[in-house]
């Protein structure tokens, strides 16, 4: 049972990681990357690494997309 959960989480990570690469628009990519971080956190949780899952969650799904979105807003703004 535990192996099945880990295998499922691994498939999620592989699928969402591929999706990040295949998404070419940076704005969409920020959201897909956030979802990838969520999948990675669930993989760590499946492996019972709850501390690392929490760290991954706050960095991969909160901080990283936030910084990317603000950078895009700055770069795209017509001056």
């Amino acid at each position, binding site marked *: 049972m*535990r*192996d099945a959960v*880990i295998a499922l989480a691994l498939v999620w990570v592989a699928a969402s990681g591929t999706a990040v690469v295949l998404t070419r628009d940076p704005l969409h990519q920020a959201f897909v990357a956030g979802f990838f971080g969520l999948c990675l956190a669930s993989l760590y949780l499946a492996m019972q*690494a*709850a*501390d*690392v*899952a*929490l*760290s991954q*969650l*706050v*960095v991969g799904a*909160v*901080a990283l997309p*936030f*910084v990317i979105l*603000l*950078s895009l*807003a*700055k770069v795209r*703004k017509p*001056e």
Partner: protein
Amino acid sequence: MTDRTRLRVFLVAAAGLAVALGVGLAGLPRFGSPASTYADVINALAVPLRRSTDAVSAVTLDFRGIDTLFEEFILFAAVAGVSILLRPLSDEIGEMPEDQAPDRRVPPPSPAVGLLGTILAPLLVVAGLETVTHGQVSPGGGFQGGVVLASALFVVYLATSYSRAERFQPGGLLEASDGAGAGGYVIVGVVGLLAGAAFLSNTVSLGQPGNLISGGTIPILNAVVAVEVAGGFVLLAKEFLDQTAVIRQDRGGRRS
């Protein structure tokens, strides 16, 4: 460099990478294999030696506490680097964006978003404090809790406006907490020296396992890490938000 030499360099590098990856992957534990000997040792020793029911916190903040000290400094240096790179340049000024249509009122955020933010922001503060203070008992700790605390500000920004969120980001205080957190970790380490033991030795009374006050220096280190991480992440957000919202080219040097 011609295409031929480029291809040759690539082939050599690719072959080296393939060999290194192959050897490395062959040495990995098999899928579903039981935990390593180190994990068994830590699980057996964390509670009797450190009275910390979260073995990961016992490793990161005690057994390998010096590694976390360096990670603290990495985060500190990264935040300082961002602050320096994103400072207003000599041809830039900071001012609120001007309204292109003064007769039109700026629509406030929708009531639903406002309500969500009102509920979510205090909950995030409580959840962050809970994660920080229970690091020695359950999964979590200063880093995770610190980012959760910082994300409360993101919600305030989302639910209100930049000028409202700006009141929660006093630059000097944030820089001070970022530095004080990083320095506080060293001070806790020096306390070990003053007690006659090694740097970062767990010299504080250990308490009972499972209690809020247990693990000796682990909750203290969690607290200083939280001060640094929360201050650092809000500072990071402030620098990026300032760049997006208020810092623009000076009118004198403005193009078009």
